[in-house]
């Protein structure tokens, strides 16, 4: 009985997700965050398997948006569509629109390389380039984009300081990126992304491999970063979503079930499915 009701409520009436988003924005109107990115009926496939079903979600500027939902519901796929990383997987494709400052990044003639320059990404598993030194890892993005900073040391220091890693590595900058601990590697990857000064930072479970101390540092970091960056973070950790995010989007089997201000979503979820998930009844 419950299941039937829940699935009815979660059924995708195209307006519902959008309505929730709009009312969330209306409530946040006091601080009036502009919309940085917006997906419109975004769908994604791996081969014939449709993993995102018409997701419409807006991502406010200089705010943290958390994406939550049970494993396999399409969270990673969703954020990988936001910087066109989804399409690099063989057999993967997508449909619908993703607006970045009002321009559809899937429009003909838009270069995915330039999109990724503006929309940076930190992956679930830290992946520094092991053949490069720590400093070169930080500078890799700039070099790839043909930027030769006049004072590379300053760029390295600034990015590493932002990622709360500078003090730990300032004396070993020429060591391999792979010589760091897992948590340090993840912060190095964050520094590498920040060095490019993207406008949006996507983080896919950045803390899943980290201990509580490293996790706390990254959460602190997210707090500091949101003055300058628009952040989208995927997390399995409800407390983390509640701590770091301003807005939360709940996904279930490829659909956006509910989206709104984090406080509201966690205290007064509108959908039964959301409530079940955040109270730990499934997933």
């Amino acid at each position, binding site marked *: 009985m419950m299941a039937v009701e829940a699935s009815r409520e979660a059924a995708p009436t195209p307006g519902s997700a959008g309505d929730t988003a709009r009312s969330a924005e209306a409530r946040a109107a006091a601080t009036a965050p502009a919309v940085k990115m917006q997906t419109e009926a975004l769908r994604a496939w791996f081969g014939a398997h449709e993993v995102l079903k018409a997701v419409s979600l807006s991502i406010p500027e200089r705010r943290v948006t958390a994406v939550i939902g049970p494993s396999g519901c399409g969270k990673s796929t969703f954020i990988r569509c936001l910087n066109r990383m989804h399409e690099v*997987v063989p057999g993967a494709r997508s449909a619908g629109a993703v607006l970045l400052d009002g321009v559809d990044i899937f429009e003909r003639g838009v270069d995915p390389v330039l999109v990724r320059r503006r929309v940076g990404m930190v992956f679930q*598993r830290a*992946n520094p*380039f092991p053949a490069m030194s720590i400093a070169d890892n930080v500078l890799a*993005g700039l070099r790839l984009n043909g930027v030769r900073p006049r004072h590379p040391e300053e760029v390295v220091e600034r990015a590493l300081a932002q990622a709360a890693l500078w003090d730990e590595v300032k004396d070993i900058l020429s060591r391999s990126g792979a010589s760091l601990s897992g948590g340090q590697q993840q912060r190095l990857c964050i520094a590498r992304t920040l060095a490019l000064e993207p406008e949006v930072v996507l983080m896919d479970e950045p803390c899943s491999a980290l201990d509580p101390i490293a996790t706390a540092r990254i959460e602190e970091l997210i707090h500091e970063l949101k003055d300058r960056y628009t952040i989208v973070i995927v997390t399995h950790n409800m407390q983390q979503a509640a701590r770091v995010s301003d807005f939360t989007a709940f996904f279930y089997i490829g659909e956006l079930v509910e989206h709104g201000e984090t406080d509201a979503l966690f205290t007064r979820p509108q959908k039964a499915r959301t409530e079940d998930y955040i109270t730990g009844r499934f997933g």
Partner: protein
Amino acid sequence: MQRPNALDLRRALTPSASFWAWTGTEANLGDRLFHGAAALCAFGVVAALAGMGVEMIRASLSSIERFGLGFVTEVTWDPVRELFGAAPFIFGTIVSSLLALAIAVPVAVGVAIFLAELAPAWLRTPASFVVELLAAIPSVVYGLWGVFVLAPWLRDTVQPALAAALGFLPFFGGPARGFGMLAGGLILAIMILPTIASVSRDVMVAVPTSYREAALALGATRFETVQVAVLPHAKAGIVGAVILGLGRALGETMAVTMVIGNRAEISASLFAPAATLASVIANEYAEATSDLYLAALSELGLMLFAVTLILNIGARLLVGKVGRAAPGVRGG
């Protein structure tokens, strides 16, 4: 003819793994019997190899005693006067192999990058298959192609053009014959290209996708991704692939013998006929009349045996290292 590929390399890694399992106490009787048999086979192969080495040393003993180290530097090879020096063949082997590498390596690495990184997904498997097929063509077929197509083409088109443009260099002097060092190097290049390309491709495919994604997410183009995320990790394995190719080039016999011109001379010109360690053995073994002549040929064989063995072991260590460091995890 040994045609190493990544599959062999992976198999080559298993004996040590089974050795550890074999020494473990938890294995049951069936396992232990199996591992015992496997270990016996592995030792058998090593013993056969050692036996071969000993036998070749024995066969070349009279030549080793007669010429000593001078055998390596002596440039005369005159069976009639029983004067045997290996220098022309060492020279021919090294030059033809290096020529082959110089031509084949850039092309093979390019092919590997294309197959592993750039080709559309539907093309990758069939194209890789074709490249591997090329490695399986018998060398005598390459040789025939060399005789009927490559050598005439070199004689009538390439060599006159090279002589006209670069004839002032000693490498491109002398009459255009077609058959000679250039033909030998080219045919070797064509023969080792598939080996180098397919092993390099396997090594690149084994580079974890996460590095590629890291580069792409930083705004790298696909070509930059190859440079930043793939090649640095595949480097050791590609070097291994090149050494495997070199090992094959050094030992390749049939096709080279058919096009290299077979003359025991050291000439600066790539147009001149030459001979390699392998080609002279194949050419002269049947007609070697005296014991010393046979021993000298055996000593050439011994040198070839030692060099290719060392190169292959080195190459396998390099390629194996990459395979172990990067278990082919794909997808994110």
